[in-house]
């Protein structure tokens, strides 16, 4: 029964991805000017060349056949060729995945941990000065556009204090003694964008966690636990937290969709060579194959992340676990 449900959700995830592909396909077909007219604008292509290109990209076929060609290419790993880089899109993306994953991964973990702690402390000390302080900070961070936060951080740390580098992942033109020194350079460049991304995400986690914990603390089973003679710490840990974390799992999943947006902003402001800034550059330069590729990747990633969190939630909440059991 468990496996059946997981399989059902997996199928559903794949169906969603199929629609994403369809959506992606149509989106970019609707573009003003297809690839042929783009190339022909330079004036260097002859009519035969144009016809050849059309055939190569299958643009002379009806749209549903074009879609199948698209899917076929996709399964072979062919996402087209980037206008800017003149390399296969897959390669271009591949080179940029790691910086983004590292940045996002670390930032998300920190944001979740700090957000949860803020939320719990806020809820426990509700109405007191600490709660007001933490809540105000969270609300403030939540309201700030992430890229603006980045600009402020640059102003403080790079321009005034001059302690951290402004942009990029490595200092250009420098030679390093060994790998360790190079790693240190990268880390120095990573601090600011990571702080920016983390701060941008703390707000929502903290505010939601606070609400959830307040809800949970008002339940009778908390009073019962206290009535049994357990310390506040035990009651919080063993009775309140497991219940409060359940909605958080859903939030974390939803936020994965947001984190892509946050990454785009941060990577652009700090020129961090990841997928976010890649998307930005592709957009600015109207590099449609690349844009399409990155968009597809980010969407598929979110769908899978949601699927995983769905499974996780099922495993963790006993009420859901036994339904259908």
């Amino acid at each position, binding site marked *: 029964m468990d496996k059946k449900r997981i399989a059902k959700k997996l199928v559903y995830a794949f169906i969603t991805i199929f629609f994403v592909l369809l959506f992606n396909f149509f989106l970019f077909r609707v573009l003003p000017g297809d690839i042929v007219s783009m190339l022909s604008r330079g004036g260097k292509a002859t009519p035969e060349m144009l016809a050849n290109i059309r055939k190569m990209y299958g643009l002379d076929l009806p749209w549903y056949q074009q879609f199948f060609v698209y899917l076929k290419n996709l399964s072979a790993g062919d996402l087209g060729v980037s206008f800017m880089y003149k390399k296969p899109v897959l390669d271009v993306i591949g080179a940029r995945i790691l910086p983004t994953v590292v940045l996002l991964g670390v930032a998300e973990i920190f944001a979740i941990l700090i957000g949860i702690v803020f939320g719990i402390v806020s809820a426990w000390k509700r109405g007191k000065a600490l709660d007001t302080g933490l809540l105000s900070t969270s609300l403030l961070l939540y309201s700030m556009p992430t890229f603006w936060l980045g600009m402020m951080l640059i102003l403080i740390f790079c321009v005034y204090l001059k302690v951290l580098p402004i942009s990029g992942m490595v200092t250009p033109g420098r030679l390093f003694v060994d790998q360790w020194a190079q790693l240190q350079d990268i880390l120095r460049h990573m601090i600011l964008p990571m702080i920016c991304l983390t701060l941008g995400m703390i707000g929502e986690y903290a505010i939601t966690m606070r609400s959830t914990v307040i809800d949970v603390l008002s339940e009778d089973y908390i*009073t*019962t*636990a206290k*009535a049994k*003679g357990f*310390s506040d710490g035990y009651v919080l840990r063993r009775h309140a937290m*497991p219940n409060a974390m359940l909605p958080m799992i859903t939030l974390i999943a939803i936020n994965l969709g947001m984190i892509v947006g946050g990454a785009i902003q941060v990577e652009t402001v700090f020129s961090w060579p990841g997928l976010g800034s890649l998307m930005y550059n592709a957009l600015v330069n109207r590099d449609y194959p690349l844009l399409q590729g990155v968009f597809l990747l980010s969407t598929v990633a979110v769908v899978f992340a949601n699927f995983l969190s769905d499974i996780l939630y099922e495993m963790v909440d006993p009420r859901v676990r*036994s339904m259908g059991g």
Partner: protein
Amino acid sequence: MNLLEVRNLKTYFSTTKGMLKAVDDVSFHLESGQALGLVGESGCGKTTSALSIARLLPKEGRIVGGEIFLDGHDVLLDSENELRKRRWRDVSIIFQGAMNALNPVLTVGEQIAEAIVLHERLSKEEALKKSQELLDLVEIPKERYKRYPHEFSGGMKQRAMIAMALACDPKLIIGDEPTTALDVMIQAQILNLLERLRRERSMGMILITHDLSILGETCDHIAVMYAGKIVETGTVTDIFEHARHPYTDRLIRCFPNIHGKKAIPEGIEGYPPNLLDPPAGCRFHPRCEYAFDRCRVEEPLTRHVGGEHTVACHLVEETR
């Protein structure tokens, strides 16, 4: 010596609108092995009294006066640490609507066992075994200890709560509206169960309810509360057959009598008073059909009217 003696208890709540006098100079007692029914409308202070005895008030609430003696020892003098050591062994509570009183993410067995592990110093396995026995005691199949609360029906959940409340063999068990959310048949079952267990273990019990009719079979004594004050106490017979306070009288008449005439029970006009600013004099006077001048200015003191029967009403004084 009484198991429980509450003297001049005053519990107030600080709210954004002022000081709410939820329990204002309340006194009652309970002997070992006896059952006391605490009855009154919603908001009259019965739950607050119970929470005060167990010292489980929310942070807005504070006991501002009085004494609570449990086996001769004033629990209001205990520090938080001393209290904790004796919790669940001295006093345990069954909350109304066990729907939310059981933690949904822990098994029922774990929840019963944790108190045993804490207080009786048994290992987890031994505690879980004992929890199975407790479930058996309340007529729930033993194997259910591995199950989660949502797998239990309403009546079963309440019985599980009773099992949990008995885990450390308490001296006093407080049931706060333990049957309110259940249908009538299950209500009867639960009440009978409580009765039986109480007698077997010679526990003291306080049963809190707004439903006077369930107290007849299960309690020895009844205390009637109104607007944070006790208006009448006595044996079950005293209250049901010789009620002296107008409020008690009206309360009894709210419940239809099978033997009496067929009539729609009369309600009581008006609403319970605002405890931020209660009426002067007797708190019931705005709704009392017998109210006279003295009632509006002077608070009636509690008077004995024979045996264990006490009443706080100016009428009683007059006719004595």
